[in-house]
């Protein structure tokens, strides 16, 4: 490392974020590499390094001969300032080379509030922001869950990759290798890459608008399909999985090994985007999970392993899996953690086995306070189940309980909001009667503001206004027992999330304006500046309420109309209607509700 970087690193917080050199980081010989890829995570190192998807795709691309994939994170503003002052452009961690010299720059889109960081990283790299102004390579592409409606980023990226990346990324990178070999133009490359299923080139679709701002038409050109359908990997046991990962030398958010159990979710909660976009349900076998877990624990030396999925307790062989893993983990003093447990099929006996030493705490997400509203959102958890689980836990010595809720859900009344306090009160009472922990039980209630998301049954819904959210937060505050710790999310962040989650590509101008006005790290309280954002909307002449607060007609052309996650819009409409009748839909295991996602699989049967 040259002293130019040392001179600035000594002045920044957590310099180890910017040096690379971790165990498992892949260094290749430049002479044997013809394609350089920068995998960019638009947030700070500790957040990005906790992301399983990044580790998978990093390993995958580096498994390709001639390809060197490196990591790049958003520098924290102190480092950014120093880099700009010293004239150091954004560089990749492995080689230290500027990413503007690479062949591809790709971003993973995890949440809307990281969009300004993407613009900032492009600028810091010395690249033009607008795709149309960048000629030749590197090409800039993006994937991840926000890519299912990436329209606000359409002006800045050359293409999106939709769906699971394990197969598609290989095809895309091969196409980049071929384009470089053939020496073709970026336009010709985009034509070629658009033929790969799951690749969406926004500039190949013309979008027109009605005078009121609604989308009038989305017209494909250059022979691209009318609908781009996301990609999935059919067989998770055969799928690429890195048994060697990069092990951070410095503290990160989730410093542990993560192994997926299954993709998709049998539950179909109507507010949940993940529950729709990751369909159909496919599982890894117990043997595969154990094999990958052991390999990763041995490779990393981590002290903790976490099993990941949208609903861990729905994994059929969970008990058997835990037994097999504990056999390996206990002698190594490795903790096994089981996130995303449901209160209704939670096995306490299992939890006890897993958490032999530390009785950390219980966390559940009933999402709504009243049974009626829980039925409307299809969160089929009953209070009896929650109470039964809590009772056993309290009797067994657990001393903390966290409950997560949402406000502003469709069909919600003030009565439903107040029911959150009622539920919390009853759990508190239960804790008083049954707790064996000397310290009693500390109960925390966290309330988030509902953000309607594309590709869900609530994609047409209006979001509550910020005033309405504040009123509900205060209403609940007045009734929440004092002994309960009560937190809530800032409605202004949720409002902007709602704007961009269902935004169209005109919002690209707002993103750029906001970035020019200094917005970045909007997901971090210390940097989020709502007034700046509102100023940007005003300057550009777009009304954020139009995106967040407006109920869409079911026949309206939505900005993501040409994107398919494999779920039939008619199914979404049926689910929405059921919500208004407070009717539940049984989970996929109890009966298929015909969402359409099973068409991805041979014989049209998913592994619910």
């Amino acid at each position, binding site marked *: 490392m040259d002293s130019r970087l040392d001179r600035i690193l000594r002045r920044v917080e957590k310099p180890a974020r910017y040096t690379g050199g971790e*165990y498992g980081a892949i260094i290749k010989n430049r002479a044997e590499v013809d394609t350089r890829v920068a995998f960019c995570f638009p947030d700070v190192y500790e957040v990005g390094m906790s992301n399983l998807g990044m580790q998978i795709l990093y390993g995958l691309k580096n498994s390709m001969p001639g390809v060197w994939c490196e990591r790049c994170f958003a520098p924290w503003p102190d480092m950014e300032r120093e880099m700009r002052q010293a004239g150091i452009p954004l560089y990749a961690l492995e080689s230290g080379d500027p990413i503007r010299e690479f062949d591809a720059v790709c971003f993973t889109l995890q949440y809307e509030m990281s969009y300004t960081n993407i613009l900032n990283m492009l600028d810091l790299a010395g690249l033009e922001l607008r795709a149309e102004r960048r000629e030749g390579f590197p090409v800039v592409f993006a994937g991840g869950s926000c890519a299912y409606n990436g329209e606000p980023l359409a002006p800045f990226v050359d293409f999106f990759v939709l769906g699971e990346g394990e197969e598609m990324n290989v095809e895309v990178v091969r196409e980049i290798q071929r384009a470089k070999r053939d020496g073709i133009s970026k336009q010709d490359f985009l034509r070629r890459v658009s033929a790969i299923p799951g690749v969406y080139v926004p500039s190949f679709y013309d979008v027109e608008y009605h005078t009121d701002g609604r989308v009038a038409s989305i017209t494909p050109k250059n022979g691209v399909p009318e609908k781009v359908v996301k990609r999935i990997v059919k067989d998770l046991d055969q799928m690429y999985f890195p048994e060697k990962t990069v092990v951070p030398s410095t503290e990160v958010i989730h410093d542990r090994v993560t192994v997926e159990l299954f993709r998709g979710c049998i539950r179909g909660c109507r507010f949940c985007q993940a529950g729709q976009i990751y369909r159909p349900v496919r599982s890894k076998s117990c043997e595969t999970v154990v094999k990958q877990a052991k390999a990763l624990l041995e490779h990393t030396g981590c002290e903790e392993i976490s099993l990941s999925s949208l609903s861990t307790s729905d994994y059929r062989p969970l008990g058997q899996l835990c037994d097999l893993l504990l056999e390996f983990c206990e002698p190594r003093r490795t903790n096994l953690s089981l996130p995303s447990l449901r209160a209704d099929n939670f096995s306490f006996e299992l939890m006890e086995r897993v958490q032999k*030493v530390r009785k950390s705490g219980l966390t559940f997400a009933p999402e709504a306070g009243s049974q009626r509203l829980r039925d409307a959102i299809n969160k089929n958890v009953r209070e009896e189940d929650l109470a039964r689980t809590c009772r056993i836990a309290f009797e067994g010595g657990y001393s903390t309980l966290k409950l997560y809720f949402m406000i502003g859900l469709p069909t919600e009344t003030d009565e439903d909001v107040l029911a959150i306090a009622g539920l919390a009160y009853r759990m508190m009472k239960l804790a008083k009667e049954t707790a064996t922990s000397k310290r009693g039980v500390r109960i925390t209630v966290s309330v988030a503001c509902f953000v309607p998301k594309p590709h869900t049954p609530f994609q047409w819904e209006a979001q509550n206004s910020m005033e309405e959210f504040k009123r509900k937060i205060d209403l609940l505050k007045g009734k929440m027992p004092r002994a309960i710790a009560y937190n809530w999310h800032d409605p202004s962040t949720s409002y902007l999330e709602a704007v961009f989650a269902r935004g169209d590509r005109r919002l690209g101008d707002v993103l750029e304006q906001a970035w020019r006005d200094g917005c970045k790290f909007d997901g971090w309280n210390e940097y989020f500046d709502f007034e700046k954002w509102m100023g940007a909307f005003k300057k550009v002449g777009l009304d954020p309420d139009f995106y967040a607060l407006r109920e869409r007609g079911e026949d309206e052309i939505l900005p993501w109309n040409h994107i398919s996650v494999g779920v039939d819009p008619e199914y979404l409409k049926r689910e929405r209607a059921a919500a208004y009748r407070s009717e539940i839909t049984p989970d996929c295991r109890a009966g298929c509700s015909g969402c359409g996602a099973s068409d991805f699989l041979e014989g049209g049967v998913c592994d619910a």
Partner: protein
Amino acid sequence: MPKYRLVFQKTGSAKWLSHLDVMHTFARAFLRAGIPLKHSEGFNPHPKISIAHPLPVGVEGYGELLDFEADCPSLERVPELLNAALPVGLRAIRAYPPQAAASEIALALYRLTFEYDNGAPAPERLADFFAQETIPVVKRSKKGETEINLRDAYLSFVARDAGEGRIEAEVVLDAARAPVNPKYFESALAETSLKPNYMAATREKFLDSTEKDFE
């Protein structure tokens, strides 16, 4: 007396790791290397490793000492096994059963490199500066700011011209009583004509009270 002692280097990008990062990284590296560390008893067991006089962030070290307890297959193979499991910049040199407790470390030899982008002053001027009786610097800590006399923190300061606008100094620092961060040698010059553009610091080795290499 600890069971074993490891001499290691912390250089290059690894110099930006904090003490906690280094401890954590070694704990994992031992596990990856197949050398199971002994753990403390109690509710929250932790691996038995300790590092003598942890380096400040940003300073390189060539003779750092890590005491550990483990079931070693062969002490000679420990460096080789560990090096296959360590990140860039952390390097195990040798492992041995120590003769003296780390608390007997008295002094540390540092190499300070003062970089001057527009030409270095004569090394004698730096030597003269650091030969003064009183060199006040403001020491910042969590408790606040205190003024100390930097001169109390070192025994000797020998400077030479290292070319390319650099002056290299060998400094024997008191490691036992009130060790200071070598960055104060740079800040002491901040208001003078000798102010460098950058100063890099390296701890070469530890010494005992007779200025012999500490084992």
